[in-house]
């Protein structure tokens, strides 16, 4: 690749690309990959230590529990990443999840024999509807997503509460095959986790290899420039929020399948966990960079911490403290790596001179 550009006049004075032949982007990308690697490493370390302390941590059941525990957070984190990449945020996911989970219960109460696919579609549709409300407000009125979704966090939860009116739906009310989906495994991998994996791969593929996906990054990187560029910013942001809502709806159905007992409070406060997972996963909170894989790793790390601390017999009162400290450590580490990237860019310049 150096051959195509080596013809410039010497008088150009503009620094020539490095002659080492190394692909610099790959260099940059490699460093970014290190971010994800770092989280992965932390995860492995955590699992290793916990397993040494208590070998049962990796027993079949426990492994299954870990995967199940991460499932819902991963699904939400993927949706959240798509939104955050566009320099927006969706704080209403917890409320949407609660609404969809309760709706699933209601559906089965009304139609006891409803097929699982119908429940999934209904949950996704309801979530998408909530996402449409968010997206329309944000895109049409051009207002900050944080405020709108903080508002709908309250609104959706309030609606959920009035709808439920103190009712609780018990496991006994749910059809057996639906509950079985919550525990069934394929080759030791829980079915619910497969949903998360599918969502993750689809989103990852789209964001990396499709024009629409790249436009999301462009919007987050500089919304004004994106407008000048003719990117349909409103439509894309709208789309991102609808996807996030739909995924939260899906997460609600998965929640119903996994926990079985449903009331209007399902998923309360999970939004901060999701944002934390995404940020820990190296997605820039101000948009433009990061990947769903990182976010998924972040979610996995957080939920594994949640699972490992009781096993490590960390006193219950210390658990939240540890989670907070780890969030700080993760974003601190991320910044350190980013600084290294920046220094490398500068260093490259030095070599050119």
């Amino acid at each position, binding site marked *: 690749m150096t051959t195509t*550009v080596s013809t410039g006049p010497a008088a150009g*004075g503009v620094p020539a690309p490095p002659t080492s032949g190394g692909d610099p982007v790959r260099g940059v990308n490699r460093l970014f990959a290190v971010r994800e690697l770092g989280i992965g490493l932390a995860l492995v370390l955590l699992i290793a230590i916990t397993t040494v302390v208590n070998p049962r941590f990796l027993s079949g059941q426990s492994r299954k529990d870990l995967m199940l525990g991460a499932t819902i957070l991963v699904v939400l984190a993927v949706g959240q990443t798509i939104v955050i990449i566009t320099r927006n945020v969706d704080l209403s996911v917890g409320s949407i999840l609660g609404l969809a989970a309760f709706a699933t219960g209601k559906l089965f109460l009304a139609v006891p024999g409803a097929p699982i696919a119908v429940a999934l579609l209904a949950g996704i549709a309801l979530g998408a509807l909530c996402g449409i409300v968010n997206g329309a407000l944000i895109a049409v009125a051009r207002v900050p997503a944080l405020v709108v979704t903080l508002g709908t966090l309250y609104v959706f939860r309030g609606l959920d509460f009035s709808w439920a009116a103190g009712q609780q739906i018990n496991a006994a009310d749910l059809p057996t095959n639906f509950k079985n989906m919550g525990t069934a495994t394929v080759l030791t991998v829980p079915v619910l986790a497969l949903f998360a994996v599918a969502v993750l791969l689809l989103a990852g593929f789209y964001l990396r290899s499709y024009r629409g996906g790249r436009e999301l990054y462009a919007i987050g990187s500089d919304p004004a420039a994106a407008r000048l560029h003719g990117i349909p910013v409103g439509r894309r942001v709208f789309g991102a929020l609808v996807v996030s809502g739909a995924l939260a709806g899906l997460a609600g159905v998965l929640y119903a399948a996994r926990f079985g007992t449903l009331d209007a409070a399902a998923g309360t406060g999970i939004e901060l966990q999701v944002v934390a997972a995404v940020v820990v996963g190296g997605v820039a909170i101000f948009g433009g960079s990061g990947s769903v894989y990182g976010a998924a790793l972040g979610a996995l790390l957080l939920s594994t911490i949640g699972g490992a601390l009781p096993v490590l017999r960390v006193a219950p009162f210390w658990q939240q403290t540890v989670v907070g400290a780890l969030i700080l450590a993760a974003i601190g580490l991320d910044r350190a790596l980013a600084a290294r990237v920046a220094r490398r860019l500068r260093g490259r310049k030095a070599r050119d001179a």
Partner: protein
Amino acid sequence: MPEHDRPDRPLLALTGASKSFGAVDALRDVSLDLHPGEVHALVGENGAGKSTLVKILAGVHQPDEGVLTLDGDRLSLTGPAGARAAGIAVIYQEPTLFPDLSVAENIFMGRQPLRSLRRIDGRLMRHQAEELFARLGVHLDPDRPARGLSIADQQLVEIAKALSFDARVLVMDEPTAALSGVEVERLFSVVRSLRDAGAAILFISHRFDEVFALCQRITVMRDGRRVSTDPAGELDVAELVRRMVGREISQLFPKTESSPGEVVLDVRGLTRHGVFDEVSFQVRSGEIVALAGLVGAGRSEVVRAVFGVDRYDAGEVSVGGVRVPGGRPSAAIAVGMALVPEDRRQQGLVMELSIERNATLTRRWSLSRYGLLGPGVERRAAAQWLRRLQVKAGRSTDPVSTLSGGNQQKVVLAKWLSTTPKLLIVDEPTRGIDVGTKAEVHRLMSQLAAEGVAVVMVSSELPEVLGMADRVLVMHEGRLVREISRADADEESVMLAATGQASPGSEPAR
């Protein structure tokens, strides 16, 4: 395209366009024809309405009145996407890149080459970007993120982007403002070849030599109206200036001789690894010292470090014999430094803040009494300087972002000149400023020097450097390679040094 041979049939025509922003009439009944195979220049003072016109052609603004036709068919644009689809490529006055994305992606965003399943073909995209850069004669790595590119490099990416469209109409709003001679020449040869291939091109610049070198026809604008459109051959610079400004400009570089006093700024061995090395120089009071060099030579980085915005790894800076601690602009201001930065939108101004607050931001403490800023204090303080620099603005409480590029630059100048500095550093002080104001800025700088202020001027405009400087310091790739006195400074000597061909032994005095 058979129309090529019929100059009477414009490719793109704007007729009777008007546009107002609130109380400001940016455009009034302006008509403009762009013909295939022709480069059309648009000149005018700051705030004359050039960029507004560009944005109408680009679909960013919808005109309040007026019609746009393409090939004689009416074209109504609702957004930039429409203009793009109609084959109009635009380079905006201010670069609009996505900092997190790679240079190649910036060029091809939304038009990335695809492979099976409509996936993006990253390799092909990189390859095409390299070809574009080769055409422009620039060595930019398509894979590096756009973040951290200098203004000039950003502008080059914008140019590459516009070229990649193979557009029928190319609109360029001050594409050369940040470029130095070499890049400009490269750009022109590319533009000429596009023109010869039948494209219609609109070119905006405040540099008349460029206008006359490139353009076949020239439209002059003033106060939102079109003054005239004539073939370039029938005009000369003086006439152009008269039409733009409405009067004669007697002297563009009103340099008054001054006798340098004692040393004000003393920079010793300043080093920031990877950016500049061992930079040492002195500036005396009453002296204008120009920092010349090619784009990317590191001049801006040096002055930023001197002012304390960037940290440096070694060396020291002192003003009036007192050492200035690094990394703290407030300390620099305290000893009487002022820096007019090169990027007014990011660094010079707080875009959403009002004009008056911007103009007085640096004086917020000195204007306060008992720590309090009374009502109207800032307005009165700002008004004086805005008048002095002839800033064209609706209301001084409007956000500074509503000003035209040149008027924004004047606000930056007002903000710093009003601090009555001992040492004034200006980085590309007249970038995007029209002739009239440019002369005014130059006069101001001369006057300040005459009053004993030490002035450091970074400029990529050779005439400005030669016209204004008492001494020229030339940088090349992060090093100070030569010092040239006013008497010895000419285009050739500066360019030789800037391209690294300075004869040994002419190292600047330490």
